[in-house]
């Protein structure tokens, strides 16, 4: 007869083994990618799983080298940073504004707007991405001698990522709903306008969810591929995603042969900040994804 304690011991050891095996399976490809980033053999097809000869060349080539003009990774990194930061600021503001209006203000069209936003939000944006591209292409203006269009333009890309952000109000509104209305009423009695209540009271009280919004709004464009791919055709203005994807474009085996380890190096560099952000914000992230739904 096995005792209760030893039975638990057996279950626990099985669980530990399962977890350990799963962690190895989950992390192995990533470890492999990081190691390959230091490999002197640049091809995706090799005779050994791990590198035989280590080098820093892949990283050096990202920021300078014979073909830097063709593949300016440094510029792509700066572009990605600008696009992610710019659209993060705009979309966070828009989301906060919509959330406040729908959570705190009572007006006639409120329910209708929420229903429309819910439906629109459930449709994937890029079904009509080509049309969006042509719409943005119509907007052009001339400063001096150069003609600017909103396509193939970093500023245009920021706009595309951010100005439609209002539909994603759901989680922040859920949080605003939990802030007691009594606070608003007290401030109203003291003569504060609704505008003032929003900026001076609700926003400072909602720090965790605002951090969550800022981080997701930043990570979205940082990790996005398709919008940048459609909107940008000039290699100087690529984001990292578009830039390094072309290194692995399956149509051309020679490119993969030369560029695979450089892709690993570039991919590692672009992933590290996001991994750090995720680890730091894990708490907010869990609060965010369960926060909106848990009240159901």
């Amino acid at each position, binding site marked *: 007869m096995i005792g209760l304690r030893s039975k638990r011991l057996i279950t*626990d050891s099985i*669980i530990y083994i*399962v*977890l350990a095996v799963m962690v190895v399976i989950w*992390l192995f*490809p*990533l470890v*492999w*990618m990081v190691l390959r980033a230091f490999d002197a053999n640049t091809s*995706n097809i*090799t*005779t050994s*799983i791990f590198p035989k000869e280590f080098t820093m060349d892949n990283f050096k080539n990202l920021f300078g080298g014979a073909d830097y003009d063709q593949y300016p990774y440094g510029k792509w990194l700066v572009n990605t940073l600008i696009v992610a930061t710019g659209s993060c600021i705009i979309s966070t503001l*828009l989301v906060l*504004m*919509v959330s*406040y209006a729908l959570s705190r*203000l009572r007006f006639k069209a409120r329910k209708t707007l*929420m229903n429309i*936003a819910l*439906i629109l939000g*459930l*449709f*994937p944006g*890029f*079904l*009509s*991405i*080509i*049309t*969006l591209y042509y*719409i943005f292409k*119509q907007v052009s203006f001339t400063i001096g001698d150069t003609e600017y269009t909103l396509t193939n333009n970093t500023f245009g890309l920021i706009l*595309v990522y951010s*100005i*439609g*952000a*209002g539909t994603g109000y759901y989680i922040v509104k859920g949080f605003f*709903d939990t802030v007691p*209305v009594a606070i608003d009423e007290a401030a109203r009695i003291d003569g504060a*306008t609704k505008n*003032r209540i929003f900026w001076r009271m609700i926003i400072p009280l909602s720090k965790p969810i605002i951090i969550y919004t800022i981080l997701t709004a930043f990570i979205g464009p940082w*990790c996005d*591929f*398709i919008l940048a791919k*459609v909107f940008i055709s000039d290699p100087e203005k690529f984001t990292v995603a578009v830039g390094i*994807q072309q290194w*692995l474009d*399956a149509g051309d085996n020679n490119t*993969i042969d030369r560029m695979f380890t450089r892709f690993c190096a570039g*991919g590692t560099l672009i*992933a590290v900040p*996001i991994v750090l952000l*995720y*680890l730091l914000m894990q708490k907010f*992230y*869990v609060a965010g994804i*369960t926060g909106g*739904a848990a009240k*159901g």
Partner: protein
Amino acid sequence: MASTKNTVPTWKQYNRPWYQKFGLAILEYIKNVGIMIWCCIKAIPFKIRDFVFAIGRCFQGLWFRFKNGDWRTRMSYLIMGFGNFSRGPKQFLTGFLQLAVEVLFILFMVFIGAHNLSMLPSLGITPILPGPGGIGMVEHDNSLKILIFSVLTFIFMIFFLYMWIKNTQIAYNTQKHVEAGKAISGPKQQINFALNDGYHVTILTLPIVGILIVTVLPLICNILVAFTNFDAFNDEVHLFKWVGFDSFASVFGKTYGTEIWGVLGWTLIWAFFATFTNFFFGMFLAMIINKKSIKLKAFWRTCFVIVIAVPDFVSLLMMSQFFAWKSDPAQTGAFNLIIQQWFGINQNVDWFGSATYKPTMARIMVIVINMWRGMPFTMLSTYGILMNIPEELYESSRIDGAGPVRRFISITFPYIMFVMGPQLITTFTGNINNFNVIFFLTGGGPFMGKSANSPGSTDLLVTWLYRLTVNNSSAEYNHGAVIGIFTFIISSFFALIVFNSSKSVKQEDSFQ
């Protein structure tokens, strides 16, 4: 928890074995989904009736205000804002703002709107031609531009109509105000109004304009493009025209035969497996990490979170090369080397079947790799829910003698389903449109090689749409638009279910 007040669900009623209860619980869930869809359909006629009534009331109000208004109010029907700025300098701001809307609208119509609207039926008649002496181009029509600006004009017209009706209301209210002998509000009160009672207008205008531009406008244009013959040949150089349902006929038969049904079938199979494998295994993972006696919880969780944190375009593209294949078994992709060198299995497998055309293999691979990518997401959100389950429930069930399986069936699973249920359908819709996994792993392949634009074996509707419209010089925008509409309908079918079942929308006030 769920609505157990009046009727006990069948799966809880009898003392059945756990697997029967489990099956019945799922049946119950599907039945509820069916009821939700039926309720949605039932509500449509009433919505239409309400809409018609609203328009009727609108006209009634217009006539009522005209009948009872003085000459200033009646003039506002022609010159917007007249009822305000004719009543003294205090009302100049409101009055002239309304006048500005009218003037801008008329200018827009005269210079852009009317021209494009008149071209809408033909979509342009002047083709591109070389200018005098073969140098440069003469002024020509651009079908797509006409289409986009026509839609924009319609949106502006609706906006103007709304502002016009609003203008008559404001004029009439001001008149009543004056007749009652009250002081007219000045600019200060109006700004105060914008920051208080009218704050929703102040704060929502910008976001709504943004949503109109990037979501609604392209959506309408996209739908219209489906009724034209816009493709790589009929692009900016050549004009395209209306062709009715020809593009639909071509996608659903003429050009692609039954291929779209194959793609739809695979899309739904993919969405089903991608959603439920992630859901169940992610839940399982969260539960074993959350088990009381397991140590280092944060460590285990963090290991999996790292996988989520790596951007899709890095992790999935890397995976596509991790499973690379070359016919020479000694010199091949990393995973083939692993099974050869570490596990001694003498195999060299073309995992994505792209060279040897193995569609089933490729399909299984994308589902498996999707688990690698997606399970941590479910794990993380389920983990949060598990921590919220009241411990007393488990305590009392333990006292009643419930085993771990029984506790899972009666407490954990219903609780998770209650919170995650609506999300599950959202995830399903998301997976129907999961571009990243398919595009980065297989690019839609393996291909049979019928024609450049035919769908591949792992192509979802969206990745096929992408290849039809973005990737090559033989783009078929009209067919892409048809597939877009088709996907839209499929998605909306599931979206409606979520829409009706999200209780937090209906009961939001109870939290404040």
